[in-house]
Every structure is written in C-alpha cells, then in structure tokens.
C-alpha cells in the first residue's frame, strides 16, 4: 500500500514540478501555445488512471497534461509538443491542447468543450463492438458538462451499455465563471445523471485516496458495460489558461486556502505518517526535479519541424 502511495506521490509531483517549469517557459515566450495548467487537480488523473489497465483508453480536454502523464505518458515528448518541436507527440501540429500517444492508449484530447464526451463514447463503442474487455475514460470539466452533447451522450452510453467512465473534474470554474453564475439554484447533477440511467458517484478530487478507492471499484463495474459518472470536486489553483494565481474572481482564493486543499500536500502527509522521512521525500523530489529539467533541456535542444510539414498529414 505504501509503495502505491509513493508511486502516486511521484506521479503527482512530476506533474506539479513539470508545470512549474512549463510556466516559466510560457512566461519567457518559449511556449507559443495555449497552456491550461493542471495544478491542484493532480489527484484526479492519478487516482483514476491507477485503476486502469494498459489496454484501457483515455481521452482528455484542453487541460490534459496530467491525464497524459498519469496514463504513463512520456514527459520529454510532451514538452517537445508544447514547444512545437518535430519530435513532439503530434510533431508540433497540436501543442498543449492536443496530446496523443497510442503507445500508452492515450487516444487524444480536444479543447472544444464537451466534444471529448461523444468521442470517448465512440471509443467505448469500439471496445464493445470488438468484444474487448477494456474501458474508456473521458476526462472533462464542470464547464463542459453544461454542453448539450454531454446529456445526449449520457443517454447513448446507457442505451448501448458501453464501458465508459465519465470523469467530471469539477474545479468550480468555467474560465472565471462560478457554478452559481452558470447553473440554476436547483441544478442537481446526480439527478440529471441518474435520470439518464447512468450511475453517479462523487469523490473528493483533492484527495488521491478517495479518488483511487472509488475509481478502482467503479472501473470493474464499467468493464461489464455499465457507464458511470465520477464527479471529482477539485480545485484549479491557477487561472484558466495562464500561469498566474488570479485571485480577482474567487472570493475564497487565497494562498492558505490553496495549500489547505493541495492534494500533493495531503498525500505527502500520508507518506510521512506511514514512516517515510522528510529526507527520503525530499530526495524523491530532487530526482523528479532533475528529470523535469533534463526533459526540458532535451526539448529545447530538439529540432523544429521542417517547413514542408505544414502541408503533410491533412489526409492519411
């Protein structure tokens, strides 16, 4: 158990430290791509992906660095993509909002809110059609949940009994709009979901233990053709698409609040209580930091795509 937590801690910390460096690159105009930071939400991706097998598939949205790394992604290739380099995940044509890596069954990400949901449903459809015993996970946010296509897809997934886990990362904001400004006072996501005949479970998205425990149980049920919505209530620490701690629109968003809800702080506490020392954990952190800096150097040294590649890949 302790080793599971340590592994989860490492993956979450990798996301955090990588994004800190990515923020620096962004501020230096080295990354000419939208970047939507995952800081604060790491427990969701890691908790859910820890419940998956390698053949299970994952799709994500505009905020998917964490989803990709949690599925076993390659940090070097990811940073290359962010920098627009030839050896990036999409050879520089996608950028931060378009992660893909079939070698780890990471199907792809799209920043058009809600679009990932029917596409994931299609992935689950294929798994059922081809009689595979795999599941698909769709990661999307509370903003995307307001797109009509999501409601249509809930019905479709239940109708066709598809092995699809919808993970709603409710980070409380759609860009800068609060839930209260977007949803009627009686809006009840559980009633909506269960009204379509889809199972609904809520987890504390700031707590790795809660997410992973629930995800592990649910994924096996999903595997039998029962679609489920897992809503993880979490907290986006940074602005919608910039590496700043924008506090203007959040009544309660102060440093103390962020730290109190920090999933990495929480899991670190668990590890300390299980007998690991501060020194051991700081060594772990140093290793990860080294890996991140190496990956960034590798990406910075990598080549840009040649001009001709502007015209390639439109058709297969």
């Amino acid at each position, binding site marked *: 158990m302790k080793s599971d937590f340590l592994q989860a801690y490492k993956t979450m910390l990798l996301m955090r430290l990588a994004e800190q460096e990515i923020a620096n690159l962004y501020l230096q105009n080295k990354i000419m791509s939208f970047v939507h930071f995952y800081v604060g939400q790491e427990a969701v991706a890691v908790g859910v992906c820890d419940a998956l097998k390698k053949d299970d*598939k994952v*799709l994500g949205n505009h905020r998917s660095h964490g989803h990709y790394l949690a599925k076993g992604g390659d940090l070097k290739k990811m940073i290359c993509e962010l920098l627009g380099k030839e050896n*990036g*995940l*999409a*050879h*520089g*044509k*996608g950028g931060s909002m*378009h992660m*893909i890596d*079939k070698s780890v069954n990471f*199907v*792809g990400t*799209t920043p*058009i809110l809600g*679009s990932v*949901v*029917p*596409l*994931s*449903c*299609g*992935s689950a*459809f*294929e*798994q059922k*059609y*081809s009689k595979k015993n795999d599941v698909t996970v769709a990661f999307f946010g509370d903003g995307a949940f307001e797109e*009509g*296509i999501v409601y*249509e*897809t809930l*019905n*479709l997934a239940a*109708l066709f009994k598809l092995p699809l886990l919808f993970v709603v990362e409710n980070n409380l904001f759609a860009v800068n709009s609060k839930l209260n400004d977007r949803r009627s006072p009686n809006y009840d996501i559980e009633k909506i979901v269960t009204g379509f005949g889809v199972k609904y479970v809520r987890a504390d998205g700031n707590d790795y233990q809660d997410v992973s425990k629930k995800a592990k149980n649910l994924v096996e049920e999903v595997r039998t053709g029962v679609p489920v919505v897992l809503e993880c209530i979490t907290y986006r620490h940074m602005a919608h698409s910039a590496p700043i701690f924008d506090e203007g629109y959040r009544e309660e968003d102060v440093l103390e609040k962020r730290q109190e809800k920090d999933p990495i702080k929480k899991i670190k506490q668990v590890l300390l209580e299980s007998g690991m020392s501060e020194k051991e954990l700081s060594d772990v952190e140093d290793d990860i930091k080294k890996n991140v800096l190496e990956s960034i150097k590798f990406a910075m040294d990598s080549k840009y795509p040649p001009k001709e*590649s502007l015209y*390639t*890949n*439109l*058709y*297969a």
Partner: protein
Amino acid sequence: MPERIIKYTEAIKEATDQVMEIDPSVFVIGLGVSYKNGADGTTSGLKMKYADRVFDVPVSEAAFTGMAVGSAINGLRPIVHHGRVEFALFASDSIFTQAAKWNYMFGGNNNVPIVFRINVGRQWGNGPQHTQALYSLFGNVLGLKVVIPSTPKMAKGLLVSALRDKNPVVILEPRWLFQLKQDVPVEIYGEPLDKAKIMKEGKDITVVSYGDGLVSALEALSIIGDSVDVELIDVVSINPIDHETIFKSVKKTGRLLCVDTTNEAFNIGSEIISKVAQNQSIHLKNKPTSLACPNVPCPTSTALTEFYYPTKIDIANSILGLFNKPKVDKKLSFEELHLAPTLTII
C-alpha cells in the same frame, strides 16, 4: 454482361451490403436505418442480414455522430447517415472540427476512416429548412474528402471507394436523384474520389455541373441536338476539385458554363470559374457563364419553385445563346418541373 437497371437508392444499398460482407469493421448508424425501408431504401434489409451492425439511434445527431467519429478514431469504419443536411449540422463539430482535423492536428498519428452520407437539396414541397444544398460549406472544410454522386453508377462506386479510404469522406447525395435508374455493374467496384468525369466529349463548350444540375444538363444535350458540340463534365469531387480535367477541357473548347442547383453566392461554379480565370494558359472566347439558383432560400409553393432551379431548357438556352443560335421555346410540364426524375441514364 446483361443489362441490370437499378435505382440510385438500390445502388447505395448494394455497395453497403457488398462492403459489409467483406469488412466486419463497417457498420451503419443513423435515424431509422434499421427500418424496413430505412434511409429512403438505402439501408433496407441490412438490419436483417447484419443484426449487430446496423444501429438506429436517439434523435441526438451531435452525440451519435461524435460517437461514430470516436469509433473510427479507434479503428472501426462507420457509415453515418443523415437524411437531411439541416440535421447533420447539429453534428458539425464532430464532422468539421473533430473528424476533419484529427489526423492533421495529431501530426498524422491517427487517421479517421469514416463515411458521412448526407442527403441534400431539392425535394417537392420541402421549403426553406429541408432543401438546403450546402455543398460549398462542406467543400470549404479542410480534412474532409467531399463527393457528390450524380448517377446510380457513381453512387455505388463512390461509396465503395469511400469505405476503402483512410480519411473522413462526406458523400452529399442529392435527394432529387433517388429514383434515377441506370445499368449498374453487379460486382463490387470503386470510382476515384478525386477525379472529375467527362460524361460526353465535345469541342465547342465545356459545361461543368454535378448532382441534379448535371442530370438537367444531360437532358439539355438532347434538346440542343447537334447544333452545339458540348463537352459535359461531372465534377464528382468538390474537395478536392479536379481542376486539371476542367482546364484541359476549357483549353480545348474556349468556353465555360457552370451549372449549380444551389444559390449563386459562394458556389462550386464560382470556384471553378475563378480558377479558370486565373489560369494564364487558358484563353476564353466568351466570358465564363454561371447558371444557379437565386440568392434566396428555396420556398415551398410550386408557383415560386418553378422559377428557382435552372431547368434543362434554361441550360439549353444558355448554351444556344452563346452561339447566337435560336433559343428553344418550350414550357415544361408540371411533372417535369416539380417531381423528381425517374429517367434511366445511359
């Protein structure tokens, strides 16, 4: 081979059936495709033969089209049917932004082998919201291949090729042509997705059209007779347009008429005329001409639709006018003006 005359819709069904027999990754999805006479007969009987591969769906175009695209991303080959283009627009994100961009935006890492069969255009009494022929809209979207079958033979061959292709292919099927008949080969065959087809060779003028406009142009040929030697070209593909075939023809004839059965603004004829006009090696004897529908939606009343679509008489007279020949003074019957053609194409 003995003649085997079948309808446009039957040709589509035959192509679907023949490909489904060979390729288990092909499935059909759309509203009512499992009905006895599903999708205007283009899917009739398929549910009986392929119980697990023909899917009726909720009235949720966005979701089921997106689901089909997702399944194609993961290796299946869906045929998505939309009985009216207006309803397909609910799914425009899945078609235009997801399926069409997926391979490019991921640097060629994931092709999307999907076929969208979308019925468009003219049909009696269907009015402004059921008759749009939004060809240009689809032609404008990079990453899609877009074809328009004008005859039963092409309907079969293009669908077979679309199902063998690795990319998203949109087949815009003019509903007006569903009753058209032709001698269609029984065996499975493909037609190129990116080539225009010369329907009739000629030396005096190049007439370029597609869909129901092409059928009217074919009929116009028999009105004109031998007085003008027309070269008639079926565009077939509007993404890409086979400009080379058109250039070659216009170089020979020195004259160009484009016939569209959609409104005049931003249409296929405009695109072709623009490219011909920019070609320095083409010298035209007359200014290029375009025949198209007026820039208003198609109304419902037959008293108004009578003046909406270019008829075979309009086409014949446009051509005759260019050669200063006497125009034809013939009034079309109510049936000819307002009911879909049932003729047999040679």
